[in-house]
């Protein structure tokens, strides 16, 4: 189902992948495990023979979530809750939900109470990563997940099962990285929206099939630099709705680096294969890029974005702020000041899941880049 997709089909599917997931599951008779972002070791879920699906919100209207999570809750959390309460809950046999902040902690509880008959597990990611105990804890959590999933399914997995899944998932990330490297130099050949759709769909469908599409898409790419593109760094957690990428394409911005969980931070998740698979997944967790709720080094966000801007010779940094994401909102004023002090042009886009009109974002974005091109910033 997902092995022979064109770029255009990928973009279409990313809008709503769930009908195709339903069809695939019916055909294959597999169980589906949903997880919210970030950092659930999806290879573990796959090694048990289940389909791991990342939940990254919905653009469908909110109906039930507002009565559970108030309007000052992170819009991604509300959107994900709505996705399962109103639309796709029955598709899933279980969920593995990571906890990284107050909102995700409560979200797990609410979710569990609403789905008493489904498999539910939390992935309690450490919210500090600079001390030895963090590494110890990640390992404990991965091992607990393996045990919990084994108890639920009645199956046992071997290191070789895990390694096979890691191999497949690593291949997916290597393919995405190669396509990203190509896109950075050839913005005329692959749009931002197309590339980030490839990443997003990778997080939601069967990789064995989708890797074939990725390989074919990669092989068909022909160099095309295009004209008038401006290289930018995209910072944040997620970037939705997908039409925001369309805006970047419209005004010829070429994303050459990013810090998104649905972008580079996912691609960075290649697991080292020269060691025990669990140890490899722990290494991966510890080495991933900055994520505001779990990194205790308060300057890392700034340092990473500055490095990406300089290494890639970018012209500006665009920050995607998810409305009501508390973690971002505590970081943002200082980050803005630090980058501006460095002379780095910085533009914040306030986004909200369920937003349909982007006209205000377009106007502000256009104004920012017009002044940038004119050298006024």
């Amino acid at each position, binding site marked *: 189902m997902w092995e022979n997709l064109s770029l255009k089909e990928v973009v279409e599917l990313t809008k709503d992948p769930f009908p195709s997931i339903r069809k695939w599951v019916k055909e294959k008779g597999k169980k589906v495990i949903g997880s919210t972002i970030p950092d659930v070791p999806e290879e573990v879920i796959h090694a048990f023979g289940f389909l791991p699906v990342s939940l990254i919100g919905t653009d469908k209207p909110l109906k039930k979530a507002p*009565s*559970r*999570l*108030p309007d*000052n*809750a992170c819009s991604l959390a509300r959107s994900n809750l709505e996705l399962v309460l109103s639309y796709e809950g029955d598709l899933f046999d279980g969920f593995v939900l990571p*906890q990284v*902040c*107050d*909102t995700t*902690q*409560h*979200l*797990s*509880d*609410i979710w*569990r*109470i609403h789905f008493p008959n489904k498999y539910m597990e*939390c992935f*309690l990611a*450490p*919210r*500090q990563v600079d*001390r*030895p*105990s*963090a590494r*110890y*804890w990640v390992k*404990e959590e991965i091992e*607990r997940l393996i045990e919990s999933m084994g108890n639920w399914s009645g199956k046992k997995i071997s290191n070789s099962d895990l390694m096979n899944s890691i191999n497949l998932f690593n291949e997916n990330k290597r393919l995405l990285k190669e396509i990203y490297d190509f896109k950075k130099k050839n913005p005329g050949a692959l749009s931002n929206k197309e590339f980030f759709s490839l990443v997003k769909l990778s997080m939601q469908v069967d990789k064995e099939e989708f890797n074939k599409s990725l390989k074919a898409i990669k092989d068909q790419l022909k160099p095309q630099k295009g004209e008038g593109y401006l290289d930018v760094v995209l910072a944040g957690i997620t970037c939705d709705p997908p039409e925001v990428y369309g805006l970047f394409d419209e005004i010829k911005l070429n994303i050459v680096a990013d810090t998104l969980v649905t972008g580079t931070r996912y691609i960075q998740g290649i697991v080292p294969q020269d060691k025990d698979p669990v140890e490899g997944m722990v290494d991966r967790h510890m080495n991933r890029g900055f994520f505001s*709720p779990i990194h*205790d080094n*308060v*300057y890392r966000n700034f340092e990473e974005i500055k490095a990406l801007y300089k290494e890639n010779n970018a012209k500006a940094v665009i920050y995607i702020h998810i409305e*009501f994401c*508390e*973690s971002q*909102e*505590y*970081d*943002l*004023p*200082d980050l*803005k000041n630090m980058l501006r002090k460095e002379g780095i042009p910085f533009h914040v886009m306030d986004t909200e899941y369920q937003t349909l009109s982007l006209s205000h974002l377009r106007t502000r974005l256009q104004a920012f880049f017009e002044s940038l091109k004119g050298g006024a910033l």
Partner: protein
Amino acid sequence: MSETQKSEKPKKELTKSQMLSKKITEDYMNEAFRAHELGKLIGYTTAISPVEIFVAHDIIPIYPENHAVANLTAKKGAQLCAVTENLGYTSHLCAYARSDLGYRETGITVTRGIPEPDLFLACNAQCFTLTKWFQVLARRGNLPVFVFDTPEYIMDKKARQEIIKYCVLQLKELISFLEEVTKRKFDYDRLNEVMKYSAESSRLYKKFLDMAQYKPSPISIFDALIGMAIAVYRRGTPECVEYYRTLCEEFQEKADKGIGVLPKDKEKYRLYWENLPVWFKFSDHAKLLGSYGGVILTSLYVHAWSFEFDLNKDPLLTLAENYVSRFSNSTLEDRADMAMDLFKRYSLNGMIMFMNRSCKAVSFAVPTLKDVLVKRTGIPALVFESDMGDQRFYSETQIRTRIEAYFETLDRLQSKVA
């Protein structure tokens, strides 16, 4: 009002415990302001954090939350928060954090302020906000932050053992961190001594809160909120034990004499409160509820400091077990059980569920918790939304109307039962 008029106002005589609280607080703040002179460091920490380790290592703990409460209670919230919003912070962040950042910009405070920090200890068993707020403050002075990460105390027994092991490991890391910062060796004998004081004061604090069992209750949540201050900032000291011993004696005497917050024949509704209080409406709410025969007796929030330290265990183990299992770090199911325990022990017959815009850590559980508690108790709930410290999110008429309507409902239900 002129100064002369102010001084003419008759002063209410302070009780023994109030005088003690005043002295303890003054001594504590005097020492804190002279910390560097005394060769000590100031550690900012969260109200729920293993402060016993600070005390044992002669770090003076300072709680920016407490300072924020003083300003918010004195209705300075909107003014200070607006200053912070002008710096680029959004209006829906915690009012403690916003008012604190506003205080740092303007120096406006109703107290003498708080000393500047040397280091930070953020324990996320309370909330994630404090970690982020402390990170903002740390960036200003390039100061070290230690995050004591307490994963949610999920219900699986085996997972709980692992969580505690992880927390003990971190407490050892905290000790190494403090040794490195202060260049002094940590004294475990001193920690054992501090734990004795902390265990005893926590036991007495719980005894004080449990005075709410009596009918009429000699204690309301407003007494508890005032009474908890010393437990928050002087845990682990002999004066803290002395304070709660005195407080318990005073309230026990009231209970023995049958003196209630409301007279026995007027005490119709013994209420549960979910969340932190609306600090700037503190006394107004007490008066309004009292006029309907209602008295709020308790909340999980005030019980957050009634620790049960086991002195027979390794101090780091009992610290980890206690701090990780606070209500704010427990699952919704466990929170409901904790609240149900209070409903039963204190014979509660009403509940006010406050959706506090400032406190996501507590409030996001409220809609589901309300459903569970209403189902388990059969008692209707009053839910209202506002902010604990920012008056701009408080609608006087709306909330008053809802409170009035709630008591009418309770009256109707009671008359049906009668």
